[in-house]
């Protein structure tokens, strides 16, 4: 396993307001465990408040963790010394969501793409130039583009530049936080294909964070569904449509608008708002909106159970959800 995450947790202490400023715990991420193999993509799917972005930030060591461990290539990331950590950082890279924010508007594209190389690799200037030119072509742009500034490019092109920057140091693992959500559909397809090609050629593993199940299903090998800081289901993406059993996963699938006017969903399966992670009730986080919730759900937090073939689910009554 390239990456093993165990019981990763992030709690924030927030004041509830009011004169006395009573404290409450915001459990943004609550005991998340998963693993990613070499060259594989794990899709992390959730809506707002699920904590999926926070998980990505913790993997990048940008947000300090409250509890839990991250092992990358067998090494405990939190235990490493600072300079060694910098060495490992070249192996873990990032692609951000907003193509209009992820590039320094005052820097030339060539310098932007070369920055990780300049920081982390001991190469001559000429060698760096050569590698930068090679990687910019790999993402579908031209070496002549290296002299330009970000504002001269469209959203899709900027995202490609961001990807070029990430793969320039030949990482083993890239955290992608909604990399195509801000792009138009036609451009989205181009970038998704590019990410797939890169994975095929270089064997890079991805953590693909998104709220868009269709895109995630397309690009991932395995998918983890996150709700209010907890993973509620993990399964192969091939079986997502047919084998998913967690009530939340089913609601997510149900809510996706199908581009087929012959199949209009007239009723609504999931009601209510996503609650705040600050007042998590005892028991299952999904109990308030779950059609199958019973007393046990309000008492006992379901743990992830293994259903075989890599399928895990955290629900007491998962056998009921697809019956009938």
């Amino acid at each position, binding site marked *: 396993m390239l990456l093993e995450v165990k019981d990763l947790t992030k709690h924030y202490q927030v004041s509830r307001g009011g004169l006395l400023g009573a404290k409450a715990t915001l459990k943004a991420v609550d005991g998340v465990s998963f693993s990613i193999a070499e060259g594989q993509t794990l899709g992390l799917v959730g*809506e*707002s408040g699920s904590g999926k972005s926070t998980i990505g930030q913790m993997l990048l060591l940008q947000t300090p963790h409250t509890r839990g461990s991250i092992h990358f290539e067998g090494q405990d990331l939190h235990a490493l010394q600072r300079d060694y950590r910098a060495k490992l950082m070249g192996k873990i890279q990032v692609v951000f969501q907003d193509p209009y924010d992820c590039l320094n508007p005052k820097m030339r594209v060539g310098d932007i793409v070369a920055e990780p190389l300049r920081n982390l690799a001991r190469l001559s200037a000429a060698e760096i130039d050569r590698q930068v030119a090679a990687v910019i072509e790999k993402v579908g742009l031209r070496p002549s583009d290296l002299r330009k500034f970000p504002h001269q490019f*469209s*959203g*899709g092109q900027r995202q490609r530049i961001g990807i070029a920057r990430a793969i320039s140091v030949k990482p083993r693992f890239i955290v992608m936080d909604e990399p195509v959500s801000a792009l*138009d*559909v*036609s*451009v*989205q*397809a*181009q970038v*998704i*294909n590019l990410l*797939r090609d890169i994975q095929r050629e270089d064997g890079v593993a991805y953590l693909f964070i998104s*709220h*868009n*199940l*269709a*895109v995630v*299903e*397309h690009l991932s090998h395995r998918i983890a569904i996150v709700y209010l800081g907890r993973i509620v289901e993990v399964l192969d*993406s*091939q079986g997502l*449509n047919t084998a998913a059993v967690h009530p939340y996963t089913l*609601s*997510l*699938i*149900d*809510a*996706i*608008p*199908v*581009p*087929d*006017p*012959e199949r*209009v*969903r007239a009723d*609504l399966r*999931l*009601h*209510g*708002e*996503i609650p705040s992670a600050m007042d998590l009730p005892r028991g299952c986080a999904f109990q308030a909106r779950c059609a199958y919730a019973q007393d046990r759900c309000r008492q006992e937090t379901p743990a992830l159970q293994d259903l075989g073939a890599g399928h895990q689910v955290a629900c007491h009554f998962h056998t009921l959800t697809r019956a009938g």
Partner: protein
Amino acid sequence: MQSEVVLKVEGLQTQFDTRRGLVRAVDGVDFELRRGEVLGIVGESGSGKSITAFSLMRALPGLSGRTVGGRVLFHGTDLLGLPESDMRAIRGARIAMICQNPNTSLNPLFTVGEQLEETIRFHAGSKAQGAGASARQRVLRLLAEVQLPSPEIQMRRYPFQMSGGMKQRVAIAMALVCEPEILIADEPTTALDVTIQAQILHLLREVRRQHGTSIIFITHDLGVVAQLCDSVAVMYAGRVVEYNEIRELFRRPRHPYTAGLMQSNPVFGQRQERLYSMEGQPPDLVSPPAGCAFAARCPHVQPLCRQQTPPRVAIDERHFYACWRDAPQGAAHAA
């Protein structure tokens, strides 16, 4: 079952003066809207779909935009020719709009209830309300209608205390105050979670069912269009390139852009090896190329496409698409 035509847009053209030159943001938009119909306007960024909506309302953003051509016939009256005072009576009361970001329509300094009450009182002159119904009662009823739980509590909340989905519901409530005939929704669910989006779409269907409101729904999401709309206008580079009834559109997209859009859309449950993707990008609206705007990316392009703007080919008496492929040769009247 044909209901009356409420809105008829013909040849709409809107331009903006920018530093780089004249931008033809909307350059030929035609469609009809019947009572109780939901029309989807589909396009990507830069297609002109939002500007079309603002042009209908005569509420163009900034100072440099002008609607320079076409007619917007609301029950036969051209809105573009109306004096501003008459337009004000229509805007908000008979044609209402909700935007992508509810924060722009909600004032952060007032509670939700106060804002709704103010809207009710502002429009009180233009429509007779139920006898004896106080504004507060109306507010409660509106909030309940948009499916907000515990309206009495929500009334006293400020916008920042609400989630995106709840704020959008309040925005819809504000738009419904005068029971408008047309509701224009500019990407109202794009920023919302998918489960909340499903709820909002469900709500809009209810609104249409109960009030007979016609809806113009602007989006880039083909799935949303398929689930909600009765007919669709697909826009590219400021023009409507295909306008058809929803089922027919999906069954047989006629314009290559529509087809390309559908093919590049990843559909849940249909995992593919490689996503179809259209090459290239939309054209620069300051200096658009001659001929068809889609020529540079079209898999069926012919030399004629680059020379002349394609004419409209009729699908039936209401619907059309603009492409040279099936146009009778020699029919060279520009759209």
